[in-house]
């Protein structure tokens, strides 16, 4: 048990609890808040994995921007439209749960099967180096500049699209 393990096990608790509550909370607002918890936990885990910049960006972008947006949009809706009884739905979908569990089992089996990736006995050598922001920037702006530019374009398109989408006037079928 080294420090990395301690961090991992401590952080996996809020992450998992958050994720479970996202799915099971009746109130979407709680879902969102638990998702924030999960994301902050993941951010901390990234930090532990040496991805410092990604960790900060995770908190700033996901927790700080995307989820704030979610919460704001939730608040824009009528409270009754958002919070209605969903527990029954969650309970009455045993078949879907079964399917998802089978999926999880198969994937776990894949991960821990010796031939696919290193199993528990053959632990990969742990790379301890921290990826510096400079290194990341070089990768981002030199090697992957095209993808970066395309993403910039995507964001522009999205910005215009979102504005025009949310300006659509409401109304019933006609």
């Amino acid at each position: 048990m080294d420090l990395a393990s301690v961090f991992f096990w401590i952080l996996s608790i809020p992450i998992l609890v958050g994720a479970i509550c996202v799915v099971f909370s009746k109130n979407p607002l709680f879902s969102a808040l638990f998702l924030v918890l999960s994301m902050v936990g993941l951010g901390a885990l990234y930090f532990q994995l040496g991805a410092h910049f990604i960790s900060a960006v995770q908190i700033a972008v996901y927790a700080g921007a995307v989820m704030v947006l979610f919460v704001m949009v939730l608040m824009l809706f009528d409270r009754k439209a958002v919070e209605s009884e969903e527990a029954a739905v969650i309970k009455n979908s045993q078949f879907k749960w079964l399917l998802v569990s089978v999926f999880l089992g198969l994937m776990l089996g894949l991960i821990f099967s010796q031939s696919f990736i290193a199993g528990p006995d053959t632990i990969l050598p742990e790379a301890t180096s921290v990826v510096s922001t400079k290194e990341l920037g070089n990768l981002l702006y030199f090697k992957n500049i095209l993808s970066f530019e395309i993403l910039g374009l995507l964001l522009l398109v999205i910005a215009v699209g979102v504005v025009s989408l949310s300006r659509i006037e409401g109304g019933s079928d006609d």
Partner: protein
Amino acid sequence: MDFFYIFFQVIKMLVIFLLMVTMVPLLVWVERRGSAFIQNRLGPNRVGPLGLLQLLADAVKFFFKEEFVPKNGYKTIFYLAPIVALIPGAIAFGAIPLGIPLDIGAFNAFGQTWGPYNLGFQSFELGIGVVFVLAVASLGGYSLLLAGWGSGNKYSMMGALRACAQMISYELALGLSLVGILLIYGTFSFNDIVNMQEGPLNFSIGQKDIVIGFLPNWGIFFQPLGAILFFVATFAETNRAPFDLPEAEAELVAGFHTEYGGLKMLLFFIGEYGHMMVASALMTTLFFGSYHIPFVTPDGLLSFLNSFMGAGFAKWIQFLIFHISFMLKVIFFLWVFVWVRWTVPRFRYDQLMDLGWKKMLPWALFNTVVTAVAMLLLA
């Protein structure tokens, strides 16, 4: 990574947290006395000398107020909001160095030798300090949203939505206004940034080094526009006047904290002042030389102090002087916050959004581009 190292770290964190919390009553006093001074009144002056103990009295009053939750509210969220309000400011403040690092020599305890330790005067030292502070500060919106939603009150909700939209809008200008100075420093680490601002103003154009001896080497001289944009954006981020739309009394009663009172209200206060302190500390660190004193180098000061006192003692005095230098600058900016609040009238909401999106953002972008081009050309 031994016992004493962790021990000192924990002590340090506690000290910094307490430092921040004890600043709050002081700030409240400054705000009330300052507003009175500006408005030609006296302000609280009965309890204690200069009314300094008024805060203690207020605190006692807060503690004995009734705890209640509005009927339509959500209990959990209602209680969660003020706690959340406290967290971002406290964590962000911890990443900023408040003074020169302190050396603790090796010493013997529990039968073995420990140390020596070099302790930076900050809760935790991060390579990505600036980004971290911005990231954590961006979490500040949650407390407002939670308070607005948890109160089950139209006005609170409206205030929360306004506050949140405002914070998201100004976060862009805030972040972009810093890009210029970060380009110049070439690092996210606060300690590196602080060290770069030591000594007289110097820079190089092409191969030529230029030193201007009568000015300190502060960021403000490289990025005046960035500094102004950043400071304005922090006003919006902290929801202070003239950007205190979320709690505009005339329209929204008191915005998101309409339903709050007592201890919970106090936590909100601490949160807001915590934000202000983070903003002032950032301003100081990035643009005003952090704890550095103009024309005085840490080594020079230490040798000067050594000339008439013991080496160990001199080190502590040096540490204290630099910390005070930092705090004085922070307090100056805090005073500016108060000063502006009682001087400038509140914006209208559309004016606020116009300012954020159509003026500050383009100017910040302009600043970034100009800085980048200038660095490329002068390098």
